[in-house]
């Protein structure tokens, strides 16, 4: 199993190398990039909003249950915002995006592979990696980052609404408690996580789409592999980033 994992990692790096080399050598396809940006980005906005809203709300209810025993409801806004931004928010929203953006792109690229489109483009003297894959890679990574940040902002509102609902704190209290907890380091952590999760999702969905073999069944398998690999990668990256940030924070304290 360990050997297979190393092989997979090696293949991913190899693919990334090929992709970047092709992207550097050939013209950038603005048109394809913008089309994909609207396909994967704009269409995922409702999903991201819903996910963000409810993630914030769920965490607010959870934190409220824990804080009410201590009579510390005044800090609910801060604790909820910080907790959602730093940890639960990025992961849950990224899971949603992996299911939507990642699955869509790998299915699309996989279908291109099994219907010979890459070979056809290559026969016309065009590099399919730079022409078709790289614009998608960039579109997925950029829109994932933007969507994640958007979802996180929405999650603050979700938390605020839910807090008013369960009677923890009114919106004013909620908002005023935020700055004490959601410090610069918390926001930085959320941003770092968003950027890295976005890049990971783009890499994983493009590579698996590119590697598809074996007809429409193969496309299904590629989508499934994309989902699994994205989620494991997201959780492990999440852990590593949190761990490094914690270390840095201790160091600076």
């Amino acid at each position: 199993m360990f050997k297979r994992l190393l092989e997979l990692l090696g293949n991913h790096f190899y693919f990334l190398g090929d992709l970047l080399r092709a992207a550097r050598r050939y013209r950038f396809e603005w048109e394809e990039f913008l089309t994909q940006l609207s396909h994967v980005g704009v269409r995922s906005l409702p999903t991201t909003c819903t996910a963000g809203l409810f993630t914030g709300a769920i965490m607010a209810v959870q934190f409220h249950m824990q804080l009410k025993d201590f009579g510390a409801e005044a800090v609910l806004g801060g604790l909820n915002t910080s907790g959602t931004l730093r940890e639960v928010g990025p992961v849950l929203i990224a899971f949603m995006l992996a299911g939507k953006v990642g699955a869509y792109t790998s299915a699309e690229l996989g279908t291109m592979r099994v219907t010979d489109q890459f070979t056809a483009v290559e026969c016309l003297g065009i590099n399919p990696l730079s022409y078709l894959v790289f614009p998608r890679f960039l579109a997925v990574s950029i829109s994932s980052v933007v969507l994640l940040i958007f979802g996180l902002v929405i999650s603050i509102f979700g938390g605020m609404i839910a807090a008013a609902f369960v009677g923890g704190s009114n919106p004013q209290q909620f908002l005023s408690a935020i700055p004490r907890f959601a410090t610069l380091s918390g926001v930085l952590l959320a941003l770092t996580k968003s950027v890295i999760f976005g890049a990971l999702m783009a890499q994983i969905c493009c590579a698996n789409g590119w590697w598809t073999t074996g007809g429409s069944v193969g496309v299904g398998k590629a989508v499934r592999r994309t989902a699994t690999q994205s989620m494991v990668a997201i959780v492990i990256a999440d852990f590593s980033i949190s761990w490094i940030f914690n270390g840095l924070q201790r160091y600076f304290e």
Partner: protein
Amino acid sequence: MISFDSVSKSFGDRKILSNISFEIKSGEKLFLLGRSGIGKSVTLKLLVGILNPDAGKIQIDKNILPTTDEGVLAQVRRNCSLVFQLPTLIDSRSLFDNACLGIRGLSLKDRIQKVSAALEEVGLGHLTENSSNIFPPHLSYGEQKRVSLARTLAVDPAYILYDEPTTGMDPQTARMIHKLISKIGNRKTSLVVSHDMRNALETADRIILIDGGEIQDSGTPSELLKSRHPLTREFLKGVQIGPHHTPHKGPQDV
């Protein structure tokens, strides 16, 4: 002129082509006939350098394959264009962009002219005006296939290679595509891979039958009609034995 000189190719234990030699003269319409999955598509992929032969060489005008020289490969691919079995259009790009895909370094005006000429030739002239707003999913399968043909014509290659151009089509559309092949074949050298004997007899200048990795029979349509070779008789009966129903798996997928 294209010539295959004792070319062999196998995938693992499976021998696809063994020691095949034949020639395509300039201006000729040559049909390569055989059952499904016996290496007809592999022959085409060898010809454009997507696959490399295990032994033997392929000469296309002055260029010789296999080669590691990217420049030679690019030249071969400019000269011989492969029309794939599926339309292989890019769904996210407009009809115009798809038709322009192979054109290099021309002004927009020239490109529009080339594309409209190509679309006219495949009988889709009425779509030219709107071609930037039409996307492949809006078209029927036969129309998509014709657009992919127009894409190849716009490159203006000397040789056009067709991989199973009418497989999975209804008889009317198939006839129309064959008429197009015949028309285009009057000014370009064509190599068609197919298992459709009836249309081949109408369209081809010369037909080669392959089976078991070797050439079994060849000749002009009228010669083949008189041939006594059992495989030829079988194809002429219109009866196809062998694995039509095997799933699309094998050399084409490699």
